């Protein structure tokens, strides 16, 4: 039987070393839903030398913006992002957890000024740890479930 999870893709992105169980959140971050136009392959709970278990997401015909890579770093801080062009790994990036997350999260505090109609982007300090947490620079609220706060 052919192993689906190693099927090579011609063009696109392979996100590897996602913490086991986080693949669906990665899809959400990338805005992949029923309207997606290219093939997306998800492998969950794959044995990994480094991590024990991991998830992998492959998205065909799409490369990620730096902002999308930052979002992935917040939920999968050890992920690697491989850009595939014509069946070859054209670029290989290990994501870097940013120090700040600007404009990519919504503050969970309904009384936070950033949830009003003000002309500002949200701004969070990223706190190290597994999983990383973030703190709103406006209201100090700590967001535990970062994936749920991604806009």
């Amino acid at each position, binding site marked *: 039987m052919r192993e689906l999870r190693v099927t090579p893709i011609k063009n696109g992105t392979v996100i590897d070393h996602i913490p086991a169980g986080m693949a669906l959140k990665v899809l959400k971050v990338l805005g992949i839903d029923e309207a997606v136009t290219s093939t997306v392959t998800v492998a969950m709970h794959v044995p990994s030398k480094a991590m024990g278990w991991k998830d992998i997401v492959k998205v065909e015909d799409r490369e990620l913006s730096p902002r999308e890579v930052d979002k992935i770093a917040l939920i999968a801080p050890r992920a690697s992002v491989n850009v595939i062009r014509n069946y070859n790994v054209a670029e290989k990036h290990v994501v870097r957890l940013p120090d700040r997350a600007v404009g990519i999260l919504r503050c969970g*505090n309904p*009384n*936070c*000024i*950033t949830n*009003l*109609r*003000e*002309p*500002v982007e949200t701004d969070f300090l990223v706190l190290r740890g597994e999983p990383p947490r973030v703190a*709103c*620079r*406006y*209201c*100090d*609220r*700590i967001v535990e479930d970062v994936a749920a706060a991604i806009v």
Partner: protein
Amino acid sequence: MASWKGRDILSIRDFSRGDMEVVLKHARKMAPFAEGQKSSQTLEGKILANLFFEPSTRTRLSFESAMIRLGGRVLGFSSVEGTSVQKGETLADTVRMVEGYADAIVLRHPHEGAARLAAEFTERPVINGGDGAGQHPTQTLQDLYTIWDEKGKIEGLSIALVGDLKYGRTAHSLAHALAGFGTSLSFVSPPGLEMPWEIIEEVKKSGTAVSTTHRLEDVVPVADVLYVTRIQRERFPDPQEYERVAGSYRVDLPLLREAKKDLILLHPLPRTTEIDPVVDRTPYAKYFRQAFNAVPVRMALLEMILGVGG
């Protein structure tokens, strides 16, 4: 320490111990001016804008008093009724408009983070006069000043914070401010209203000795400072439960029989039933002095951020 001129006063977290000490020393110099014994014109020609998006008489009047005592003038509003805010103007726009009319801005706002946002839209220094359940740094500095001024030092004191420590922002900010000063802190609260663990951890990390208890009697004999805060009725679904809990955290004369002679008793006011009014006549009661200290502390901050005096 960077220059104070033009500096925003947004959160006590932005202050190092050294910064706080500079404010305390400056505030002490301001005390005779705050009391009206001496007069000063250091802020003559300066205008302070008091932007109060929700009422807070105490905060507003103490800033006004501080500014006027130093020869400055004050404009602004004490609630949003009848202002452009009611027509839907953003805070960012209000601040950019007011910037043209004043040299510094005090902002009181019902939403957390409002002062930081305001500061991003103006070059004028912004003082956070309380934003929602968030920060109120001048209140914290006033509390710190009262302890320092009454006891002559902060280091080495045994300080107990009493009341609703879960939701009470004054207690959170004061605990944070005291963390750098080498005190020993006791957190005394009813079950369910304990100090959040993040704050306990943060305070411990600074090397401060921390203890927690549900019993006020435990801390009274050892405390140098009792900082009492309100326990709000709204936190209890059952009114009888509230009465019972509030009663067991009430400071009265029998309780104080065990206290050190030089204990000082503080409260951010207004109080409800936490301190028996008969205690007001004892030498322990310093909460009205604490309320007065709003003025010298705010005078010091205004002089510093407007780059005069000092």
